[in-house]
């Protein structure tokens, strides 16, 4: 039987959650025994190539490209996991959520104290995905099956959840592994 496939992506996140995944240290060798990686920042595969058992979502949803990626993951993965506070609640990027978008953009590109932009141009190349009005937790855009909060969730948390799922055990985190910070 072929190994189950795992895909992962970083949306509006800082890659810290993926770093935490790598932080499982030598257990990564066991993980590679258990699964094959499909689309992921770890192997730089750009699109999901075949049906995946598990999709790991880092980061919330802040622009139209994030929405497309989330839909690709939902369509092609049996189980979707939001990992990290950014995915589960928006995280640091969601701090912009109670500031009007225009104000955010002006601060970033025109008015910020360190900005040099004499012509007052804001980036609007069609290649750049449009920002959403707010940063959304992943589960407010597609259905998410499991949540692993934390900024980032610890390597032990990720390991416990992944091994449980891959061995058909219920995902029940012990008290010390459920943290929001």
């Amino acid at each position, binding site marked *: 039987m072929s190994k189950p496939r795992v895909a992962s992506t970083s949306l509006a996140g800082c890659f810290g959650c993926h770093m935490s995944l790598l932080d499982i240290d030598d257990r990564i060798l066991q993980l590679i025994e258990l699964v094959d990686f499909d689309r992921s920042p770890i192997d730089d595969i750009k699109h999901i190539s075949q049906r995946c058992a598990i999709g790991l979502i880092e980061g919330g949803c802040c622009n139209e490209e994030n929405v497309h990626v989330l839909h690709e993951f939902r369509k092609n993965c049996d189980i979707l996991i939001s990992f990290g506070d950014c995915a589960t609640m928006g995280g*640091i990027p*969601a701090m912009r959520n109670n500031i009007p978008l225009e104000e955010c953009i002006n601060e970033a590109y025109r008015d910020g104290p360190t900005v040099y932009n004499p012509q007052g141009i804001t980036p609007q190349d069609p290649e750049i995905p449009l920002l959403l009005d707010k940063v959304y937790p992943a589960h*407010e855009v597609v259905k998410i099956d499991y*949540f692993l*909060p934390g900024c980032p969730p610890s390597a032990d948390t990720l390991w416990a959840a992944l091994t449980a799922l891959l061995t058909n055990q219920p995902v029940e985190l012990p008290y010390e592994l459920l943290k*929001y*910070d």
Partner: protein
Amino acid sequence: MSDAIKIKIDGKEIEARLGQTIMQAADEAGIYIPRLCAHPDLKPIGSCRVCTVVVDGRAQAACVKPVMEGMEIMNETPELLQHRRNIIDMMFVEGNHFCMFCEKSGNCELQALAYRFGITAPQYPYQFPEKDVDATHPDIMLDHNRCIMCARCVRASQELDGKNVFQSIGRGFERKIGVDGERALGDTDMAVTDKAADICPVGCIIKKRVGFEVPVGKRIYDKEPIGSDIEGVKS
């Protein structure tokens, strides 16, 4: 003792004394009833409803309801656990709780209840309301993003400090903690030594320059769920 009575919590008979609340009697018997607005040094007001139990078939706030002989109390039923979880979920989505940089994280009672209940994400949509931060006081900060309107600060200021620094103002979703009406904390007679400065269950009233003093792993709720101290009294 003549005022000694017997009550039952989840079928277990415990001793209580007339004049106690259900919560006080449960605490003494080593039974934890979750709570947020209640505090041992303050008069209970029964506002958060996290401590809801079912007494002889009726929902009651355990922090205010006095014990009576023969009371049958339900505490850990699936319905009550769900009800409490719902309240905690609402508190998370109705504020802006960024635990990852909150000075209170690890020592926060709201977060600790969420951990105890095993909440991995709230079931309601996040509101991301617009809230103020009041940093006008030299030693204390007020971050309304994290306030859960438990009114502990209001009571502590009046009952313990003999002041009246905090009040609850406004209605419904607009309700918030005010300081001397609409003024700023820096304009009040609040002192960092006030009991009110230490009473907040969450990271709304924060002392300046002491944040993140206790390392991760050594904070109150890092290893032991909230309520463990009470459950440790008796088993």
